[in-house]
């Protein structure tokens, strides 16, 4: 499709030109980087390793209203995102983008989820190829890569003075046409530089795991002692799951303010005991051993059995942020050995 380039100092102009869209881009606050809606183009940054919170929050927010109601009446007012909210998401890392194509399968399964799907359809995803993968990245082991294009609509490469923009799908035409003169045309030399950048980035990825056989093996380790080694030091917090781009579990709760109410859904995690706790007090996963096992097995066995793809993209967040050094690569490696 098209090849363009954007001079780095023109990025704010470029964002400003996209006024037909809601633009989302990474914003730095101290050392944390997170996607936010951009009102002031100077706040956006494309100079980051990866965001702390993956861009899944743009399609599947931490908390979202499903519908509103008045407690005294029986009127229900759905809050499905409207078709009007066209979005451009700038600067998605290719691993996080790949996560969308995995989670799409779940939210599109059987009963399609209108909230997620509407946002997904209305969003134009503009990726940002990795030049410097972080030390715990292992995307290449899961079919991704520093410049993996699936399911992006366009991708940016940082080539020093400027970004090279390669459009991939028809959807990206809409935003390219509205970007105006912030974009310059590019050609074969930029394309070649981009390929080189992707190649050199790929070589910098140190960590790997061979996933063959894992989905078949994990169920046989159901009662295995090796889960205890990891769960013994697990805190049972939600970091690994909340920050995972493919984790999609949620809780639904009703909230009322005087007579106004809403039913909302919010992120939930299989690492919390109350996640599976029955009203009777029985808990099918009573300790962290079962919960750790479920998290890993769900990603590497249950999800692939059901949806045909491993629910992990190798972004390395669960390793980077784990306070007690539970390293999913190490767990998987061990699971192959025992």
């Amino acid at each position, binding site marked *: 499709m098209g090849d363009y380039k954007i001079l780095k100092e023109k990025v704010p102009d470029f964002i400003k030109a996209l006024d037909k869209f809601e633009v989302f881009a990474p914003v730095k606050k101290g050392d944390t980087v997170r996607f936010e809606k951009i009102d002031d183009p100077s706040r956006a940054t494309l100079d980051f390793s990866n965001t702390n919170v993956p861009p899944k929050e743009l399609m599947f927010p931490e908390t979202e*209203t499903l519908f*509103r109601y008045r407690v005294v009446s029986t009127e229900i007012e759905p*809050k499905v995102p409207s078709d009007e909210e066209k979005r451009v998401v700038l600067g998605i890392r290719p691993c996080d983008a790949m996560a969308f194509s995995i989670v799409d399968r779940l939210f599109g399964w059987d009963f399609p989820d209108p909230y997620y799907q509407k946002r997904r359809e209305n969003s134009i995803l503009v990726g940002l190829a990795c030049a410097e993968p972080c030390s715990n990245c292992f995307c290449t082991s899961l079919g991704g890569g520093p410049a993996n294009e699936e399911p992006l609509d366009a991708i940016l490469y940082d080539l020093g003075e400027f970004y090279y923009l390669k459009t991939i799908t028809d959807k990206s035409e809409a935003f390219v046409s509205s970007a105006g003169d912030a974009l310059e045309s590019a050609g074969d030399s930029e394309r070649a530089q981009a390929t080189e950048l992707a190649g050199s980035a790929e070589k910098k990825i140190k960590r790997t795991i061979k996933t063959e056989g894992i989905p078949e093996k994990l169920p046989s380790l159901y009662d295995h002692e090796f889960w205890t080694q990891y769960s013994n030091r697990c805190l049972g917090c939600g970091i690994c799951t909340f920050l995972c781009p493919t984790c999609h579990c949620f809780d639904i709760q009703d909230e009322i*303010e005087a007579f*106004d109410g*809403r039913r909302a859904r919010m992120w939930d995690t299989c690492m919390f005991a109350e996640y599976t706790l029955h009203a009777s007090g029985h808990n099918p996963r009573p300790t962290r051993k079962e919960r750790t096992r479920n998290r890993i097995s769900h990603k590497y066995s249950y999800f692939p059995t059901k949806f045909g793809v491993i629910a992990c993209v190798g972004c390395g967040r669960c390793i980077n942020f784990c306070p007690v050094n539970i390293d999913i690569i190490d767990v998987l490696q061990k699971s192959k050995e025992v």
Partner: protein
Amino acid sequence: MSNDFEPNIIGFLCNWCSYAGADLAGTSRTHYLPNVKIIRVMCSGRVNPLFIVNALQQGADGVLISGCHPGDCHYLEGNYFARRRFVLMHKLLEHVGVDPRRVQMSWVSASEGAKFKDVVEKIVSDVKEAGPMDQFRRRQLNW
């Protein structure tokens, strides 16, 4: 802040002293400001400091806790515990940026109807100055 602002204040009054004090103020036809909505508790020691936070969250502009004078507690020592907790919670809220005038505590005995009136007047005028509590109030944002 506009002068028409009428604050909502939740008052947690102990059953044995302060509630009786408020009652005395009422029966002796002392006029006190109607901004304080009273919740009767058995002892000021019953007031979990999270009640304060929860009240502020649910729309109160100020919170008043009132109990027996130290040494006079019906349960002997409930108000001593309440005092420690209150002072710390007060400091914590102040550190988060809540105006310290919003949260107050007083000792009002069953015979101090007049003092109760003064306490109410003080907290109402303080909270009026502080303005509406909108820092971490539950609002229907993005509902």
